[in-house]
């Protein structure tokens, strides 16, 4: 039986931290509404909402205070609590949104994901970068950061040093983008839906992507999550592409080990998005007994309240997991690849969302 007790202290710590962060957010908002200048500065100029409080506070705690070892397992399991939050977020959408924004997102992500993965892998091959590093950096910068590295590294046989460089690099640039993009978006007057699409295309790591979008606003989060769902659906295909590019095409396949491509796609498919689409479907069917996110007292309204808590606990976990020591592992060729790919994606993504405009990217909901 797994030792669940070891997760309790850290998880309770994240829960308490999330509670404090949410209440500080409410406190600042209430002072801001009452006209206090300092609160207006924090709320509007510094954009200090609960996301920023939890992320920045978490980073400060993690990197300045000695965190007891007993808390670490619980902090680690707090991050994936965002996942049920994303499933629950399905109640924010109807099929019309999925078809309109999702199809735009699908085209954009297909272009950005495969564009990044193919270009990175091709350049790496040309410049003599090892197959392992080229493969994980192509998938990591193209799809969803560390999650993609985890899925790809056994397939392209990346070695541990390359993996450490790649993970450090993705974490470094993901964190830099998380803390700069909301301010850039605000300064150039990007709408929430445009920002959501931009973050979903540009931010390398998923956790940071969700945090940046929620930081910017609910509408940004709705667009970002839908486009990100489209993005992660491509994960198995990118792994398959890396397999073909580095192993099958070059004949480097282990002769006594048959690779089952169907099993590979099945193993790398993010099953939880089925839950997300199931809730979209139920919300679209307009079932009276389920109500809606804005119908007080209904099941969907309750779920909508729960998602904020899932995100708050997850963001507390993310903040408390951002370690400067981890990011110091960034280096070598991975650093150059990560920096180039993230800058190019950031600029190109911004140009594309500015060209598309807000209307096509806005989630109308029910």
């Amino acid at each position, binding site marked *: 039986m797994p030792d669940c007790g070891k997760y309790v202290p850290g998880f309770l710590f994240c829960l308490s931290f999330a509670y404090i962060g949410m209440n500080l957010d409410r406190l600042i908002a209430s002072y801001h509404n009452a006209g206090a200048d300092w609160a207006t500065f924090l709320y509007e100029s510094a954009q200090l909402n609960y996301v920023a409080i939890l992320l920045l506070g978490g980073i400060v705690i993690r990197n300045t205070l000695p965190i007891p070892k007993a808390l670490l397992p619980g902090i680690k399991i707090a991050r994936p609590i965002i*996942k049920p939050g994303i499933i629950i977020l399905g109640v924010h959408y109807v099929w019309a949104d999925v078809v309109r924004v999702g199809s735009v997102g699908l085209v954009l992500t297909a272009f950005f994901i495969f564009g990044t993965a193919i270009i990175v892998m091709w350049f790496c091959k040309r410049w003599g970068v090892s197959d392992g590093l080229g493969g994980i950096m192509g998938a990591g910068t193209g799809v969803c950061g560390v999650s993609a590295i985890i899925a790809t590294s056994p397939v392209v046989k990346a070695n541990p040093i390359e*993996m450490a460089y790649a993970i450090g690099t993705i974490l470094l640039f993901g964190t830099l983008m998380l803390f700069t993009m909301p301010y850039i978006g605000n300064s150039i007057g990007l709408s929430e839906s445009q920002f959501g699409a931009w973050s979903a295309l540009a931010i390398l790591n998923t956790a940071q992507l969700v945090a940046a979008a929620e930081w910017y606003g609910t509408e940004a989060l709705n667009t970002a999550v839908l486009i990100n769902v489209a993005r992660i659906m491509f994960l198995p295909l990118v792994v398959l592409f890396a397999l073909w590019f580095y192993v099958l095409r070059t004949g480097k396949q282990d002769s006594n080990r048959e690779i089952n491509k169907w099993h590979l796609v099945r193993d790398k498919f993010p099953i939880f998005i089925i839950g997300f689409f199931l809730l979209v479907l139920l919300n679209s069917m307009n079932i009276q007994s389920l109500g809606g996110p804005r119908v007080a007292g209904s099941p969907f309204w309750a779920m909508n309240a729960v998602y904020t808590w899932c995100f708050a606990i997850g963001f507390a976990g993310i903040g408390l997991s951002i370690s400067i020591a*981890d990011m110091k*592992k960034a280096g070598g060729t991975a650093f150059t690849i990560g920096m180039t790919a993230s800058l190019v994606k950031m600029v190109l993504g911004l140009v594309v969302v500015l060209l598309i405009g807000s209307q096509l990217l806005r989630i109308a909901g029910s």
Partner: protein
Amino acid sequence: MRILVCADGELHSKNAIKKAISLGLFVSAEVTALHVIDPWLKTFYNEIYAQGRKQYLEYVDKCLQENAEQTRRAFNQECVAERLNATFKVRHGEPLVEILEEMNEFPPDVLITGGKCLNVWSRFKSRNLPLQLKKKINKEVSMIVVDNI
């Protein structure tokens, strides 16, 4: 006399091993090589959208074990070639913590590590294990850092 040498399988630590062996032969010291298996990579298995977690953990474990085995083989070959009787140890955990723990349990007279040649930027962002060890070890232990030149 007891010499402890840190061996992670990289070029700078291969140079450190050579230094430890020649010093061990010169002063007839007992040489122990320490390889630390760092589980850092495994801590990322539960990333939000991570798929194929079991396969990833198995793969990382296999890579780390192979690296330890290769380092042990290379160390033994060097020792056989130089006709030195030496010990190879493996510990699991954060390298700095484990090296200090080993030194605490079996105090050496000399600690030898490899060191990368770092430029200003790398020095700023690197973990620089030899520097961290220097700050934390007992002052009675001599420390030699063999640069990767």
